[in-house]
């Protein structure tokens, strides 16, 4: 098993990858399948979703009924260990003390990174999302078109296994035929939403998620993904056959011991390890990328968290994919005579143009959903239906640029500890309900609540960025990030529109509101920067070395054998979740890297 200690490292690797999540995992997969010798360094421990996932445990088996604590910040059963907003000895800071200007930063310190902790929503950016500057006059265009990336979206989707449908919706692209798995049937509330939203001109369609609704086609896909590479085809087919289809129970945020839900460890790293070409070094906190005399990346310096000692690893190419802001931090901390302001930072743009999803949820109680005949509504647990942005063709009639999508959250979900107060506002009791009355009301109203959560686009701006804190260091003495954050009027107007539209849909479903939607108070409605854990940017890709950090192949302009393999290269946030695009970009960057290395260019 090529999980190695610092002493077992090879003299030199073809490629060193920092981080084992969506970007690093995809790069490791592609490169090892092509026979390159790869080292992946992960800051956390090895985590095995197959043997460690609490699949069907109920809340009464968890301490404190599984509520979030400082040790498990998204709840006890969430597949996050040694992870969270606050990590002991690993601080970050905010430049402003104003609440509206705080940025929150979730760090995942475990094998597989944040792919463990993910709703698995996997949407493609659309053609307009690559043209933000041209279409809206703000933010940046990407140095590629949708068509340039589309083949890798197809490949990533086939590899990962994603369900969804073909809808033909403007700027919410379909996949190529035969790529997606069938979507799950809608729940009662989702069907109701679809019927009631239709007259408003809003389509409720199956979301795309990285969950197997049927087993992948292990006969067909490996040949399509690895033409002319029988070893890769065999290893991928073997791994696909180890993945079972969803058992239609248990929350994907817990992880998936049957590998139906995607995570990097089960889908990317497991077959990559089988090649024998991957070394995996856990508990390694990388803090510097080293350069040789020619100014090319030569390796990394890391601290072995178990011994506290510093070590080095050497490679022909270095990929950094530690989670966008962690990669930015690594660049800024890699200072040298050649790059006194941080590696690959001759443009001065490393750390700039941080973006995140613009989000808030609206909830209502739907009388039509009361007292439904009892039935199992787990489905694929979590989101099944969403509303792709429906005004992409009429953007100029709105007072904000960029769109948003809306995800439905409904159903007779497994109750958690919060359900005790859920029925207070609908209760007929003259006090808070308790006793027999509460039991009766709980039976009636359970499952009748519906939420719609909007997540929208954000163009890069000058107010959202990070830099090294001049004073604060982490427990290993590595300088930490200091964030600057400010929502612009564009995002605030978008949130107002979200709140109005979500309320309108819920009203059309007959919804009763107990918290008024916050259309008139967008600054109150909008979630704090970072909260949705969709933060990207900081080492953006572009067409010009003076205006961006990397090219379209994620190679830094200054150091071509240094690749940024995670969300740091995004020139902006679309109304789609970032992960699928991270995977497609990493896939494309890895294919390009293989070509370049074969040609001897790197």
């Amino acid at each position, binding site marked *: 098993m090529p999980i190695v200690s610092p002493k077992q490292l090879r003299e030199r690797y073809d490629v060193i990858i920092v981080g084992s999540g969506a970007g690093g995992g995809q790069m490791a997969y592609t490169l090892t399948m092509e026979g390159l010798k790869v080292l992946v360094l992960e800051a956390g421990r090895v985590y095995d979703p197959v043997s460690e996932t609490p699949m069907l445990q109920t809340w009464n088996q968890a301490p404190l009924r599984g509520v979030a604590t400082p040790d498990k910040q998204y709840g006890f059963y969430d597949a996050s*260990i040694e992870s969270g907003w*606050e990590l002991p000895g690993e601080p970050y800071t905010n430049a402003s003390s104003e609440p509206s200007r705080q940025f929150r930063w979730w760090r995942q310190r475990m094998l597989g990174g944040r792919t463990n902790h993910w709703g698995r929503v996997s949407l493609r950016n659309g053609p307009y999302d690559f043209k933000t500057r041209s279409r809206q006059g703000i933010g940046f265009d990407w140095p590629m078109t949708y068509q340039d990336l589309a083949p890798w979206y197809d490949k990533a989707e086939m590899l990962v296994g994603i369900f969804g449908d073909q809808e033909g919706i403007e700027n919410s692209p379909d996949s190529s035929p035969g790529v997606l798995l069938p979507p799950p049937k809608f729940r009662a509330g989702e069907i109701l939403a679809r019927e009631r939203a239709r007259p408003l001109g809003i389509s409720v369609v199956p979301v795309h998620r990285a969950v197997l609704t049927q087993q992948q086609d292990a006969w067909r896909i490996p040949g399509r993904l690895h033409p002319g590479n029988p070893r890769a085809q065999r290893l991928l087919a073997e791994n696909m056959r180890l993945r079972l289809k969803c058992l239609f129970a248990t929350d994907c945020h817990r992880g998936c011991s049957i590998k139906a839900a995607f995570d990097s460890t089960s889908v990317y790293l497991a077959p990559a390890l089988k090649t024998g070409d991957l070394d995996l070094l856990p508990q390694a906190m990388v803090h510097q990328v080293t350069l040789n005399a020619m100014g090319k990346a030569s390796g990394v310096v890391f601290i072995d968290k178990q011994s506290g000692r510093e070590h080095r690893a050497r490679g022909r190419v270095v990929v950094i994919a530690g989670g966008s802001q962690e990669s930015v931090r690594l660049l800024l901390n890699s200072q040298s005579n050649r790059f006194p302001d941080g590696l690959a930072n001759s443009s001065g743009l490393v750390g700039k143009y941080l973006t995140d999803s613009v989000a808030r949820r609206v909830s209502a109680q739907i009388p039509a959903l009361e007292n439904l005949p009892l039935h199992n509504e787990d489905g694929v647990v979590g989101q099944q239906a969403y509303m792709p942005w429906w005004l992409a063709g009429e953007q100029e009639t709105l007072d904000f640029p960029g769109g948003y999508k809306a995800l439905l959250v409904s159903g007779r979900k497994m109750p958690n500890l919060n359900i*005790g107060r859920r029925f207070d506002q609908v209760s007929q009791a003259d006090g808070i309900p308790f006793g027999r009355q509460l039991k009766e009301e709980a039976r009636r109203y359970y499952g009748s609540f519906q939420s719609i959560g909007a997540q929208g686009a954000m163009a890069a701006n000058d107010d959202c960025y990070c830099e090294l804190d001049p004073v604060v260091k982490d427990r290993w003495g590595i300088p930490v990030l200091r964030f600057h954050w400010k929502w612009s009027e564009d995002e605030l107007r978008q949130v107002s529109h979200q709140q109005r539209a979500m309320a309108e849909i819920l009203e059309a479903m007959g919804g009763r509101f107990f918290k008024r939607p916050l259309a008139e108070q967008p600054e109150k409605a909008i979630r704090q920067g970072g909260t949705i854990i969709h933060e990207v940017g900081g080492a953006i890709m572009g067409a010009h070395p003076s205006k961006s950090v990397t090219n379209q192949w994620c190679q830094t302009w200054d150091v071509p054998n240094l690749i940024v393999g995670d969300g740091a290269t995004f020139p902006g946030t679309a109304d789609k979740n970032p992960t699928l695009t991270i995977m497609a970009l990493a896939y494309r960057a890895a294919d390009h890297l293989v070509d370049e290395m074969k040609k001897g260019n790197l």
Partner: protein
Amino acid sequence: MNDSTDGREPAGKDLPRVDRRTALRWMGAATAAIPVLEREALGAERSGTRRPRLPAGGYGPDPDLLRSYQPGDLWSLTLNDAQRRLVMVLCDLVMPADESSPSASSLGVHDFIDEWISSPYPGQVEDRRILLEGLAWIDVEAIRSEGEVFVSLPAEKQFKMCQALARRAKASSNTFPGSFFYRLRNLVAGAYYTTPEGMEDIGYRGNTPQDRWDGPPPEVLEKLNLPPQ
């Protein structure tokens, strides 16, 4: 009922004792507002510069997720025998047995309450303070009005006191003693509906591996006036 005292400490020094002075103060407190801090599981420090300091005894950032945990497994419990009996009675007032499902105490919800108020984490500190104060207060109040501690009162008197508290909780969920009943009710009902029996009673039918998922059955669509899918 589990009357084992394993893992349970004797009543600690920090627990409220009801002497005359305290009792008088609590009677006064029944009409005076006690401001209650927002419960914030992650502490007030959000910038990420520092993690909130914790008393020892949490399960740490990498616990065994597969094990089934019982109250008292991870940290010592708090309630003495008298408090525990009182919590059992209150649990069953909040979630009594009825035709279709058992009582909260028969599902061990009182032990969960003990686990909760004994938690080493900051998110439960306020609940601990208010619940322990409330347990003392309700006996004082029962003695004042009926001459007996709460558990000795007839069921209808107990229910009436809870009704009064429920009204106060509705008027203000963060003013004592309404805050006491509000938090108690939230925890008892939440703990109840997270047991297999409670999930069954509320109508949750999931968490069962299925070979397929076919959407809602026809009778559900019929009730919603939706066409077959």
